[in-house]
């Protein structure tokens, strides 16, 4: 029982991660792939933030009257990772826009067909 409660967070987060991961690899639409990546990454962020939490702790901004703070380090890492995620999303979507202009489609299967007939 304690395992269940102690790991509930992590398990759900893993399900979320896999939801995103599945979207990336199984869906032929390029925009959907980017959305999948976004979900995948966001869920990994939740994993990191979950491990930073201390039971009974508070946000790591030092103030009188509080002594137990959550771990600030994962927060810092995830701040960086969010930015990286935005950069990836923006670049990926820019590529999608250009692919649409070049091929007239954003469906991976159609693109393959066009490439093979070239």
């Amino acid at each position, binding site marked *: 029982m304690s395992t269940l409660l102690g790991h509930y967070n992590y398990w759900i987060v893993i399900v979320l991660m896999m939801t995103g991961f599945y979207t990336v690899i199984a869906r032929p639409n390029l925009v959907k792939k980017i959305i999948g990546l976004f979900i995948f990454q966001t869920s990994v962020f939740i994993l990191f933030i979950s491990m930073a939490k201390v039971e009974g702790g*508070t*946000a790591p*901004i030092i*103030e009188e009257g509080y002594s137990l703070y959550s771990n600030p380090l994962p927060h810092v890492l995830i701040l960086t990772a969010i930015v990286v995620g935005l950069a990836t999303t923006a670049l990926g979507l820019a590529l999608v826009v250009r692919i649409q202009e070049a091929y007239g489609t954003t469906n991976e299967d159609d693109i393959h067909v066009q490439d093979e007939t070239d």
Partner: protein
Amino acid sequence: MYAIATILILVAIAVGLVRAFRGPTLFDRVMAGNMIGTLTVLLVAVLGFMNGRPEFLDIALVYVLISFISTIAVLRVYVSRHDHADTD
């Protein structure tokens, strides 16, 4: 007291989410998103008080702005695209 308010707001969010799933139009979903944004702002404010750290209202303030601007942006970007698609 905060707890009860929190629960009520969470339920409201869940109800709003159902509308976001059902649609049927984009506008319904944007509307649901906008409402969830409002509810989130209030939830953050209440949670801040519940945890005794109301200075986190800055977050709530940012959420108000972001939720407003992204609603407007989504609508404008979408509508202007469709205008162009018709005229080009």
